[in-house]
């Protein structure tokens, strides 16, 4: 893909839905206007008056991967997706700013019929008992395998296994494909509708849309830094630029 010559810095933002709208509003509120680029079939955009910055429109999960691969300098996506894609952020990504929208909690949920289970410690007991009684590990359905692994490890739970879930994770306990789930929720309504409850201490991450910078792979030359500095200054993120510079 050939870039226009003046492009010095690439930022990826969500390409559709509520996240895309909220992103546009967030920039507009800070005096930065997003303009769709003609003939780009909706994959590319510009910030008005900032020809040195190219805006790529990608799906939220692609943005996490693009940041990690260094295909883009900056990106906006959910913190849940960033932490899932890179369990060890250090040296790879810098989370510059939470943006105040796209809120979602990554939670551990179990069936409401498990009246004896309300904490991670209870779940730990049940995992061990399940392994002993049923001679197999209790299954946790999730598309957040890395976040789940880290959280269960911190809570001392070892007797379980992760079942990757592509979608409709909340249906897994009723369908019998897993006993427990880890999923995102905003209001908890979908979980309730499926007979599930969130454990009292089962909130793994309170996520929101986050502006992040790639520390590995992306070429941070003088021009890219200058363009980023100008953008961050307009957005009122001078301190964040300073912190980012220190990591580059």
């Amino acid at each position, binding site marked *: 893909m050939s870039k226009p010559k003046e492009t010095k810095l690439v930022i990826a933002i969500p390409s559709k839905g509520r996240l895309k709208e909220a992103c546009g509003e967030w920039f507009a509120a800070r005096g930065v206007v997003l303009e769709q680029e003609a003939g780009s079939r909706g994959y590319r955009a510009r910030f008005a008056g900032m020809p040195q910055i190219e805006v790529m429109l990608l799906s939220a999960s692609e943005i996490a991967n693009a940041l990690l691969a260094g295909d883009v300098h900056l990106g906006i996506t959910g913190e849940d997706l960033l932490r899932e894609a890179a*369990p*060890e952020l250090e040296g790879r990504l810098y989370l510059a700013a939470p943006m105040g929208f796209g809120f979602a909690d990554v939670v551990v949920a*179990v*069936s*409401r*019929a*498990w*009246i*004896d289970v*309300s904490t991670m*410690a*209870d779940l*730990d*007991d*049940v995992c*061990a*008992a*399940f*392994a002993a*009684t*049923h*001679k*197999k*590990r*209790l*299954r946790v359905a999730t598309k957040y395998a890395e976040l789940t*692994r880290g959280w*269960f*490890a911190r809570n*001392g*739970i*070892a*007797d*379980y*296994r*992760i079942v990757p879930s592509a979608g409709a994770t909340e249906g897994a*306990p*009723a369908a*019998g494909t897993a*006993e*427990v789930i880890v999923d995102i929720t905003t209001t908890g309504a979908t979980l309730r509708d499926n*007979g*599930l409850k969130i454990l009292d201490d089962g909130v793994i991450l309170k996520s929101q849309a986050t502006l992040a910078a790639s520390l590995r792979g992306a070429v941070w030359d003088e021009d890219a830094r200058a363009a980023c500095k100008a953008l961050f200054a307009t957005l009122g993120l001078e301190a964040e630029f300073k912190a980012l510079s220190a990591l580059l």
Partner: protein
Amino acid sequence: MTAFPYYGPADIDALNMQAVTLLKLFKAKGYDRQEPSVLQPAALFLDRSGEEIRRRTFTLTDPSGSDLALRPDLTIPIAKRVVESGPHFPARISYNGPVFRHESKGGKPVQFFQAGVELFGEADKAKGDAEILTLAVEALRAAGCTDFTIRMGDLGLFGALVDALQLPEHWRSRLKRHFWRAGYVETLLDRIGHGDETSHLPQDEKDIAALLETQGDAPLAGRTRAEVITRARAEAAEVLKLDGNVAGAITRLLDISAPIAQALADIRALLKTAGINLDAGLAAVEARVALLQKLGVDRIDFNAHFGRSMEYYTGFVFELRSKYGVELAGGGRYDNLLELLGASAPVTAVGCAIHTERLLATVKGAA
């Protein structure tokens, strides 16, 4: 060090010669070599071991869609074979071959060679522990490494300590299960000590059953109704309150990491404070120390919180380290593993694995 080791002619010859030496020693002690395949069904490791092993296991899918794994150790495939072939016990098996483990910190090799021994079904546990410990020491010496220290612990000692406490059974098993996790056991003890674990469930069985009814069509999700009710009753009935002094003594006891004589003295003092008698467990530790001294190993550290990253250990655990602190060999007792792999009755198991590349580097460095 690289993530993908490449062995030149001199390297691989030296490693092979060392392996021959080790396997010859094992053979002389009655341990016959076996070689499980490198590729194994993924479920063998993923279903029976915890996420810690899973996290470090390389998995792949074969063209038909079955999940396979590169073996992260040889103990599990060998133990599985023992379960399936039903040998005469005690069974003695040795091995030497590459294992594969993901390293979250880059740069460490993802493949390395392990040589080891497994002793299954030796009813006299003290005898089995002694046999494996002796063999580990002799193996290092046979390879030319004479300058090493030993660090040991005993999960059985902790188990006996927990059993001596006035706690409900599932709290005891919870504490034992988490022995290998530094910090967490202390948190649990602290919570019990402060009486923070009070149940909100109704006391009466009928009320518990009624509460379950009110959950409507929420799925039982793999558990039976009886399982849920039984555990709910146990939760409701429990009164958790551990004497603060006792909880404190255990926490301090878990902190002990010292040369063996000092460690034993400290443990005895703390047990006296807490009013707990663990003479049998401590006698087993002392017997191992006496054995090591007879073998001429005198730099022995005892670490009361010495768990292992592999979660299947249940009793005596040890590691042999070079004078520079490099872990050369490690092992211990894992009496639950064969049952987890499908054995119909308990089978005792104790073994040891040697990191042969580190051992070779240590010997070469010393020469």
